[in-house]
């Protein structure tokens, strides 16, 4: 079976325990205005263009740019090929308690491909994490959960209208899926991007906390600060960034938000 991925990153330190390899599956149903990985959104192969490297030769016609100014993003790969790349760091996984993380895009968008990869991983006794928006049919998530050790689950905006406005989709299914997933007792780590003026509003923070407190076992939550520099990527893909230039949240601001979550008895980290 084949799928489309856009990167395999080894020595991944922030996508679960230990030293990991993260496989990025291409394609995402969400359109978050702050998206740090715009190359992940389209499910198709795209061309990336770095003007500063261009030699103004004509080799791009042959798709053979020597300067790597023009580069394809995304490749069609088989599940076996992905596994061969993942298993190259098996010793490091063993020594570090790491494993593999499937991220995206939204990995569940390529459900069959993802499932096949997860089955392989379980055969190889690897620790598996899935980094998801939660925007997927419950039965898909449920099947994936059976083959996954840890979910990295995004939580962005609690108000449905705002969610629709800034990510392009409703959050009703996402929140329901999260509730159900918590009920299964699976390990979950929540990820909340802190985009000043959008996700760090008082209403959103308080609403998120209220929601989490209703859950049977509220998972720990990581607050991820916005990085304006990541927005430079849009130009390389000839895309328009919908998020107006936004200052990164200060350390003080992050600490303040962290304190809000902690004060409610939730486990939170930056």
């Amino acid at each position, binding site marked *: 079976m084949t799928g489309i991925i856009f990167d395999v990153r080894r*020595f991944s330190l922030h996508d679960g325990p230990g*030293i990991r390899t993260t496989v990025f599956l291409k394609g995402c149903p969400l359109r978050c205005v702050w998206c740090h990985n715009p190359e992940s959104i389209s499910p198709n192969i795209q061309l990336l263009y770095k003007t500063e490297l261009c030699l103004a030769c004509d*080799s791009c016609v042959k798709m053979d740019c020597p300067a790597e100014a023009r580069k394809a993003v995304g490749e069609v790969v088989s599940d076996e090929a992905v596994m061969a790349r993942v298993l190259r*760091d098996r010793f490091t996984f063993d*020594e570090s308690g790491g494993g593999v993380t499937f991220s995206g895009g939204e990995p569940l968008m390529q459900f069959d491909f993802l499932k096949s990869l997860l089955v392989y991983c379980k055969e190889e006794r690897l620790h598996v994490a899935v980094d998801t928006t939660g925007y997927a049919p419950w039965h898909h998530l449920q099947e994936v959960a059976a083959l996954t050790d840890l979910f990295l689950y995004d939580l962005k905006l609690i108000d449905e209208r705002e969610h629709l406005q800034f990510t392009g989709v409703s959050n009703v299914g996402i929140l329901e899926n999260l509730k159900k997933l918590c009920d299964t007792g699976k390990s979950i780590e929540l990820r909340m991007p802190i985009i000043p003026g959008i996700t760090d509003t008082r209403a959103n923070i308080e609403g998120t906390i209220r929601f989490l407190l209703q859950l049977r076992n509220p998972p720990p939550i990581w607050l991820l600060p916005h990085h304006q520099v990541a927005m430079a990527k849009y130009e390389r893909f000839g895309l328009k960034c919908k998020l107006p230039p936004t200052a990164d949240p200060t350390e003080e601001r992050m600490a303040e938000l962290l304190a809000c979550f902690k004060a409610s008895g939730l486990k939170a980290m930056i």
Partner: protein
Amino acid sequence: MNERVEKLRQASFEAVPTLSTERAVLITEFYQEHIGKFSTPVMRAKAFAHLYKNQTLFIGEGELIVAERGPFPKAVSTYPELTCHSEEDIRILGSRPMTSYRTTEEDRKTYRDKVIPFWRGRTMRDKIFEGLPKEWREAYGAGLFTEFMEQRAPGHTTLDGKFYTKGLEGFKQDIADAIAALDFITDPEAVPRREELKAMSIACDAVICFAHRHAELAEQLAAKETQAPRKAELLQIAATCRWVPENAPRTFREALQMYWFMHLGTITELNGWDAMNPGHLDRYLYPFYQGDCEAGILTRELARELLECFWVKFNNQPAPPKVGVTAQESGTYNDFTNINIGGILPDGKDGVNELSYLMLEVVDSIHLLQPQSNIQLSRKNPDKFLKAACEVIRKGYGYPSVFNADGVVEQMVRVGKNIQDARDGGTSGCVETGAFGKEAYVLTGYLNTPKIFELALNNGLDPRTGKQVGVQSGDPKTFQSFEDVYAAFEKQLKYVVDIKMGGNLFIEKMYATEMPAIFLSVLIDDCIKRGKDYNAGGARYNTSYIQCVGIGTITDSLSALKTHVFDNKTETLASVLDAVKNDFKDQEGLRLKLWNKTPRYGNDDDMADDLMKRVFNSLYAAIDGRPNLRGGEYHVDMLPTTCHIYFGLVLCATPDGRKAKQPVSEGISPVQGADRHGPTAVIASAAKMDQLRTGGTLLNMKFLPGTLRGQEGIDKLAQLVRSYFRMDGHHMQFNVVDAETLREAQRHPEQHRDLIVRVAGYSDYFCDLSKELQEEIIARTAQESF
């Protein structure tokens, strides 16, 4: 660090390296008067004794461990019997911008009037260059290899624990016994053996005399001292120097002072490479530490202070001033003492003790240029130890470096060393494996592997000079396949290695007969038993290493030709060689294609890594197991020191897209910037080399400080090390600093004088490095996490 140590540290940091002619003058005087009167070993020993009887002594304010090689801290002796500096050399030493030594008009006068007239034409360097054949000199001049012994004596060795339980009087008894056992009836070597042994005994007396003179000086200083606490300290120094090294040390303090006299003795009689190394210091000192603490005469704090005072002493001994090519390829004040911490005991058990942790604290607090330190990490050592070391590594001094203790043992057992000797060994200098106190493991020179490949692409002609320095290995126009290219490389390799080894044979013979290392021979098993000098094969094990440089550059160059010329056929060999010849002028497109579109070593890409393995196997086949003069064998080492800069300077452009004069890759690290898949891909690539068949490899990694933040950063660093060692990797070292800081230091060196970075098997002050080396370090790929 208390106030005393703070002062000593600061004084050492600020002391200016200064040329001292005292040793040169004393040695010259002695030779002038006595030349021809004694056998060579006895002559050497008596000259050493003359030096130690007359040398200016120094006991610094506040010092607890005493004695210097020169008349004051950072006063550096010269060794005219090995290399006699010219007046011009001395002028250059005093005025060159990097690694300069303070010199005076008086020094030049002394050399002009006394030293040069006697030694010119008599020095080892003069005789070596005179005696070596034309092919050797041409290959050396082309930069195909360097020669370690042309101006410094064979070194790279390490002492073991034997003199902590036996004083020099005990060694003299062993020497007397060995003389008594000589067989003058049937052994034609009996008389030379007796001369060597007699010389050893004289050398022991010389060192005892040197210590006693310090005792007298301390007593005199005590008599004049008005402050009671310092008076007591001086009297204790006197008592210590009266007891050691004549007798075995009884206390922690005496043990440190004992080592220090051994250290100075060996680096004063000759200027061997890598100064001297104390080996497993934590292990040797531990019984004293335990005993003194139990007796109530030592606390952890006092032990720490003594260790810190001891540490500072190493920094007071910059490398003897080098000249010529050797100065170019090893331009540093660092003299490469490297202290081993941790590892395994001779019985195979965990060797980490309380002093291992204390020493890591000292490494952290002192962080001067010298001494280097490393941890020997076994699978039997606890993670607590590794993580304590990682905490220091993260500070960014470039040390401690980390060695695979189990792998080091396997390397030694592979070449036939006794397993207990192997476990009692470790690494010294940069990354060299050896059996401490029992082996002469001598680095003989670096091999410019990419330059040898360049000869293969030019039918033996050096394209830089137009001279035919290699063998004729075929006109590249006639190469039909990749195999033709590779065969030409192997032919050149064999030719160059043969020339190098031929030269070594002559040089080793010169040292064996004319320049014995008498005092060192007392301390290395089995020189006394065999009545044979360290330089003549007296040691239990006798290894010669050739250090191969640039495996990343040659691998990528081979890969580029294979990929684009022979596999994809998108370029012709002629077109690539033309572009290389013209340094890629007006061929940036082709250069980038070779640079970017070639599978390259360091990315866990099997195609490229198989080529690396093939090159390594060729090097191994050309070098490993061949006999040296001293009854031992050659083995391969994969370390560069700073030679990758010099080797790059003499190399034209290469088919991997590297431009002329740029550095070649260092150690077994990938070409600077070629690794794009993170550190786990780098270690996977590097581990494909069968490192257990080497005598050491060097892998550099650069991390951005942010990657190693927090406890998690420490954990991940430790896990990365364990992963590499599980794959039999030999060594890893880390630079934890961002490019921005380094650029800032280039702009404002005055504000960053204390910025230490990892260079090769050692660290150096960033601001003391040449511009080329600074750029090279900045260019190394910084590993980020994702």
